């Protein structure tokens, strides 16, 4: 079980996740937030202390750059090698509307893969 910082991108409202740009290995960050579109690319905090650091980093970036809004932590767990939020609401938020799988995050990831990104 871990925690990830989630937010909405101001310009288009799309759901984004925080990655510590300065330290992609997941170590202690130095305040350089990077917002990514896929949960798989987010940094997972293994304990509450790191989660609090990441949330502070995200909130500081949100306040300074104003590029994201509605910033908070969600719980995630690994399931068959993939990250998945533990709550239904956040799972739907991370992967897109279940009734239109052609439109949400999964479709976005598939299109990116197909394009070789």
């Amino acid at each position, binding site marked *: 079980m871990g925690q990830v910082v989630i937010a909405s991108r101001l310009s*288009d*409202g799309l*759901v984004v996740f925080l990655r510590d740009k300065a330290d992609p290995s997941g170590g202690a960050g130095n305040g350089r937030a990077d917002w990514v579109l896929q949960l798989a690319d987010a940094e997972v905090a293994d304990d509450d202390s790191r989660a609090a650091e990441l949330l502070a980093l995200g909130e500081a970036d949100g306040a300074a750059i*104003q590029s994201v809004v509605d910033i908070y932590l969600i719980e995630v767990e690994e399931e068959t090698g993939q990250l998945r939020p533990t709550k239904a*609401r956040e799972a*739907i938020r991370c992967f897109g*509307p279940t009734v239109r799988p052609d439109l949400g995050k999964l479709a976005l990831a598939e299109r990116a893969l197909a394009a070789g990104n």
Partner: protein
Amino acid sequence: MYHYDEYDHALVKDRVAQFRRQVERRLSGDLTEEQFRPLRLMNGLYLQLHAYMLRVAIPYGTLDSRQLRKLAYIARRYDKGYGHFTTRQNLQYNWPKLEETPDILAELAEVEMHAIQTSGNCIRNTTSDQYAGAAADEIEDPRIWCEIVRQWSTLHPEFSFLPRKFKVAITGSENDRAAVRVHDIGLIMKHGDGEGAGEAGEVGFEVIVGGGLGRTPFLGKTIRPFLAKEDLLSYLEAILRTYNMLGRRDNKYKARIKVTLHETGAEEFARLVEEEWAEIKESSLKLPKPEMDRIAAHFVPPEFRALESRATAEEERAAGDPAFASWVRNNIVEHKASGYAIANISLKPVGLPPGDATSEQMDLVADLADEYSFGEIRVTHTQNLVLPHVERSRLPELYDRLLAAGLATANVGLLSDIICCPGLDYCTLASARSIPISTQISERFADQGRLDLVGQMQIKISGCINACGHHHVGHIGILGVDRKGEEHYQIQLGGSASEDASLGKILGRGFSADQVVDVVEQLVDVYVELREGDERFIDTYRRVGQAPFKEKVYGTA
């Protein structure tokens, strides 16, 4: 239909320019989200689970073909190729970008549309009977009064910051197709009785106040049995002033007028309204006849041809084509003009989200409106579309065109014509998904013969207690709740939003998502087994009570 005058055009154009500047200031960081949020909401722009959502007002559910084509274009150009028609006769786009929203609003302004007052604690879009101006049972076209209310309530300075949002519905028929008893104000057009409630034969309004759904559902109460037309605005103003004064601002869950009315008492509330009204009845709010006539002139019926009431082409096709016969029986409604029909277009195909229409479907319906219905389209609060004026002899060709586009589902008013909110698939307030429950029910009851056998029935599904899916007034109401992070569903029985309005009662303990459809099927089976004669589900339920349904589902009454 109503067309903007120079003031309407200027007002909407100014609002687009104003919002464009506000968006620029937000994107540049000059406005914080806290400062910007109320500004975007005033323009119908919400931030939902996956993206922004823009709610576009469709005044009293009336569109012309040019407007529907524009909605289709916006869906294609700025969104993901579809829109969602709502229970308040509006349209929602689920994926607009903030930076492009001013352009969308400018596009809407070109066709006399906007998103003003589709959010916030103000008077929202006035809704009405989708068959207005066409229904055989209509006393008068209610859209004239909806338009007068729209003009009065738009940017009304006194009512822009009410304790809570405020919704008005008007019906022109005794058969309530606008759910007036579950609105903050419901108006029913009726004839005076000559015995104190209006002059005999005079047309006016019964005024119902304090209806609403949500976490505290109430049916509205009649506070004035008859109101003369000329007094409409002064009386509405008196109600709103009374509510504005008494309505609670300390607790948003107790701020709607339904709670105010309940806590004050209907009689006392009515007395206070009458007292206020006495002060303003003879003010400039009294509607002058020329002004009423000016608005009414926008709603003059189209020039119907003189036609025989029966159409050979329709009857011959129905005799040899059961699918067409089902469509006519379920989707076609009697028109006031001989030889014409009202054609409902179901947006509830088997297995797809209720109320959604693609850009291509919207374009097609716009074309069909031009070819078959004087360019007019209506949106229903049950999330379907209507072509209000179709010659009966042309129904077979209309049906073929709709069938080819997946728009000929013959289920209007039947079990799979489900009202359903966006639920947890889109909505940030939702506790559980509602659309998948709806699509699974429609798949279970996909067989047309079975649907026809079950007959008139209303299932309504909400993904949370806010009740946007009207579950309190469904014959079967389904409410999604969050139980320790898992989706769970409560069932209610016995609700109705029509002239026989009633609130449903909870059946018992709830069910997981994979149990709900089985439970619905059990409830339908009980009804089919117990019904007598032409009883609808609701009639049988009212006759036999909850016990047999409970026994079937839980094994005990």
